[in-house]
């Protein structure tokens, strides 16, 4: 039962949605639409088990005085503050927005901007002409890097066109090939999942 019911659910809902896609009758369309709404709702609702997990993990860290336990207190305080602000004052409330604007936004943007540095260190390390493949990677990267900025245009007026050609031709070709392959892999995996052949995602054993 622990295996069968979940497998029936995956099979039933999956194939229903696929079939409903081809049947314009309102009964099918409405049911399919309802399942889609439920599914977005259920996914979102799950965030509360996440919050529960954060509290549990951090509380036990504090209780057991594991290393860096003091920081867990900070985490829990700000979590409580943000949730209280949001659920009492609503998602447009003043405190909620203030914390979002002056803490979450700059923290996110700064974390994101670390990439400027990491792009440099990765380029320094990886772009070395060790093999023919690595050489292609290196040459393509350097051409585009220079051609994309105004100074490239200064050096040679044809640079932007070369960059555009590289993006349009080899880049498009390889990415399209990867996309096709990935989509096939995806469809085959989705089918294995729907048919219950692949069940390791739910910890299920072999057939």
């Amino acid at each position: 039962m622990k295996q069968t019911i979940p497998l029936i659910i995956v099979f039933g809902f999956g194939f229903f949605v696929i079939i409903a896609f081809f049947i314009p009758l309102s009964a099918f369309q409405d049911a399919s639409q309802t399942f889609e709404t439920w599914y977005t709702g259920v996914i979102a609702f799950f965030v509360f088990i996440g919050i529960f997990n954060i509290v549990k993990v951090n509380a036990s860290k504090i209780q057991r005085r594991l290393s860096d336990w003091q920081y867990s207190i900070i985490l829990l305080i700000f979590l409580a503050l943000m949730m209280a602000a949001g659920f009492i004052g609503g998602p447009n409330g003043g405190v909620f927005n203030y914390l979002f604007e002056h803490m979450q936004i700059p923290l996110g943007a700064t974390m994101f901007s670390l990439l400027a540095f990491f792009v440099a260190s990765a380029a320094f390390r990886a772009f070395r002409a060790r093999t023919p493949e690595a050489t292609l990677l290196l040459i393509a990267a350097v051409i585009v890097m220079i051609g994309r900025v105004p100074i490239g245009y200064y050096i040679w007026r044809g640079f932007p066109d070369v960059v555009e050609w590289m993006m349009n031709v080899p880049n498009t070709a390889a990415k399209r090939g990867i996309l096709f392959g990935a989509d096939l892999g995806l469809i085959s995996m989705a089918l294995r999942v729907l048919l219950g052949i692949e069940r390791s995602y739910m910890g299920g054993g072999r057939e």
Partner: protein
Amino acid sequence: MKFLERLENLDRRILFLLVGLAVIIPLIFPLGLPVDITRPVKSVFDRVEELPEGAIVVVSCDYDPGSEAELTPATAAFVEHCFRRNLRVYMMGLWPAGPELGNLSLESIAPRYGKEYGVDYINIGYRPGGPVMLVSLGRNVADLVRADYAGVPIDSFPLGRALKSARDIDLVMTLSAGDPGVLHWIIYFSARYGTPIATATTAIMAPQQYPYLSSGQLVGLLGGLKGAAEYETLIEMKARAVAGMDSQSIVHLLLVVFIVIGNVILLYQKRRI
């Protein structure tokens, strides 16, 4: 050749420091290098130029503060252009924070052109639901949009009444930083209703859009801050994006120098073996 060996094991924090300086210095002391125009940006510009006065352009702010640095300048330049051409701007967003950020641009630009809220532009705010929402939006706007971002009934605005379904939209501009975003507009909206889609994306996402550009599923593309700088140049209003271009050039050159050094080290090592 001890020097090269030292470089090989260079503490990457020195790289980090150099990158930091290369950004800060040109911002304080600008160089003013010129900006060239690429075709995907020109296509967006031309499409806007071709639209008749009063055409409705949906501007979808599908980004958040994380990519604000790249997409706000593009939003501002595009909205500026729309107002200049007397097009009507219908703003929304697939990301919660997007329309709020977009609104800052609207509010600062509209007064300069004497545009009136609800008549020449409107902001219907964040629209959750991604794909499903887009499909129903194209089918019938009224099903989905009852009020603008401030909660005022949409029917009380002329522009709110004018847009009923995908057919009334002349162009969609999505400022996209990920999912849901430009891909969803293409797959769930344009593929179904045939509405032309233009986009401004973060530079990271830009290469991914080329297949859609060449297949005609996208009208045009503003890639990253560079795209915004090009658009600023096209509408002859140089602002924040153009200012950042100097730092860009310097850092790019710096990176190329790093790469050259890396390869010199490699050559030296090869010769020693």
